């Protein structure tokens, strides 16, 4: 498999580190100003841990952000696992690791390119959010059933009849386990589906 372009990864990392810097900074400032760092007798107060943790997150992420943006971030250091490996003379295995990436020229067994898979991922994510907003109308099982059907037929382009049958069977099993066996009061929505 080919790898994702390094500049693309760097941009994604910079966004992630920037986000964490903001979150850490917010936590630090909030804890510092809104909560007591120390209680009576210099005992640890409710603000100390979030302030220290938030401050450290902001500091580490900030440094990583700067190093990533300036292209000076070392991508590897020696953890114990690597040291142990080098002691026993083993090399890291090459596997189809879930974290591994496919380039644009890489196709899976269904002939989908990386770009097509990314589009599918975006569609699934949007459909998932839409389904959760639909819960108040068609209930949890109704919304997630529609989501499953949409993904199978539209996103994955599976034949519609097996998709309908598999979705219906799955919804029934989930209904049986959760609503009947475990007696979970699943939200039925304004249409009263799946209660």
């Amino acid at each position, binding site marked *: 498999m080919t790898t994702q372009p390094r500049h693309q990864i760097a941009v*994604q990392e910079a966004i*992630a580190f920037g986000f964490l810097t903001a979150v*850490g900074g917010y*936590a630090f400032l909030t804890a510092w100003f809104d909560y*007591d760092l120390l209680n009576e*007798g*210099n*005992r*640890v107060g*409710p*603000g100390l*841990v*979030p302030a220290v*943790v*938030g401050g450290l*997150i902001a500091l*580490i992420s900030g440094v*990583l952000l700067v190093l990533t943006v300036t292209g000076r971030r070392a*991508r*590897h*250091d*020696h*953890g*114990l*696992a690597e*040291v142990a490996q*080098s*002691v*026993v003379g*083993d090399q890291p*295995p090459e*596997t*189809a*690791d*879930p*974290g591994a*990436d*496919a380039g644009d020229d890489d196709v*899976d067994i269904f002939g989908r390119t990386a770009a097509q898979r990314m589009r*599918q*991922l975006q569609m*699934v994510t949007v459909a998932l959010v839409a389904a*959760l907003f639909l819960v108040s109308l068609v209930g*949890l099982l109704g919304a*997630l059933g529609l*989501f*499953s059907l949409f*993904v*199978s037929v539209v996103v*994955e382009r*599976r034949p519609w009849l*097996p998709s309908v049958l598999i*979705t219906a069977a799955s919804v029934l099993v*989930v209904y049986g386990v*959760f609503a009947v066996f*475990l*007696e979970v*009061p*699943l*939200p039925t929505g304004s249409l009263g589906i799946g209660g």
Partner: protein
Amino acid sequence: MIDNLLLGFETALTPENLFWCFIGVFMGTVIGVLPGLGSTTGVAVLLPLTMSFEPVTALIMLAGIYYGSQYGGTITSVLISTPGEASSVVTTLDGYQMARQGRAGAALSIAAIGSFVAAIISLFLLILLAPPFAHFALRFGPPEMLAVMVLGLATIISFAGDNRVIGLLMALVGLLIACVGVDTGSGTSRFTFDSIYLLSGIPFVEVMIGLFAVGEVLNQIHIGAAKPIKAGFKELMITKADIMRSRGAILRGSFLGFGFGVLPGAGSTLASFMAYGIEKNVSKNKHEFGKGAIEGVAAPESANNAAANANFVPTLTLGIPGGATTAVLLGAFLVNGIQPGPLLFDEQPTLVWGLIASFFIGNVILLALNLPLAPVFAQILRVPYGYMYPLILLTSFVGAFSIQNNMFSVWVVLIFGLVGYVMKRLDLPMAPLVLGLVLGPLFEKALVQTSAIGDGSLGILLDRPIAIVVLGLALLQVAAPTVFSRLLRGRRAAAVASTK
């Protein structure tokens, strides 16, 4: 001890517990076979199903899921070179090569046998070591517990893969997430944004379902499907020569795995790599490693299974999880109103020994189920993923709802699913985040209590010998990689210079 074990078997062998143990192992195997999904996901996704059970039944089923999904992950490691979790990564090296040579069945069989032998050895060690360790841990006060938690975090950061700084960052993120909600010591609401749902904190199980199940599914959509290698019933016949070749590897892997697994915060992954590396050095067939050596499957599989059992030593005796999956199991204990720790063996003997006895039974079921049926489970890989993942998502979200019966849980799963996906893409380690999240409340509680005992000073840590030793070990964990790598570099440079 014999009495306790008998009590345990009496508990675990009731028809109800036996049935749910079987269901746990079976469903765990099915979940583990789904590409990329491992034991943490299996336990997190199926945890909601156990909410209405008796605590001991719930934990027995979850432990069955743990074992089942670990073995299921081995099936995907061998057949599509896609490990369910980090501890199975090294299995892909020779397991996948064996599969390509038409020996998938032998690889799966030796993995099942090795895992079983390792499980039995490590369970005996667990039974021998856990009670005295729990007894010793009764001496631990807040300063010692604080030190142990620092050790746990230091260990997991040290083993966090490529970058310890990133490991530390993720552990801190976990600790910060754990800060959300009402502070139990002072009653102060922290980072709740006036939401009543956030008053009790960000729910742990929902975060796990999001990170591990939804995040992994989204990641699999991104990666795309790999073609599975067919494993037939005929290929399952493992030869006597295979077993003779593997027996040393299995024994070495078992003891090594247990040794690493008892460390709080680490274990299976390092154990599997070490076992593979050692086997590669000591084996008569070292030239076959990486090309389909059966020892290359037997050693890491034995090691990671032994480590998985050893993980229960710190989990049960200290309440500090050994790894990500035991962290979720710890969450299951807490959901059931049970606090693992030194007192657990005295206060809940039926539960603890019932659970330990169920480990034996679960592993027997696993072996009986998987030796003949591994190819049947492997057929799941032939079902198009396009049908499978919507169902995983459906079960995950409904399961999440059932934990607290509110939609807040469902949204938490979605948000942390996206976080999990981003973490996967950027190769950010999840285990430190999970440990930080689990240890957060315990860490803060121990910190507050220690400062109270020390009249506002943490200097009391230096007056307690056990705490000093444990903190010293933590320091060693953090410093050791740098020291060792410098030593190794120096040794290599000297070797290169001498050859010139």
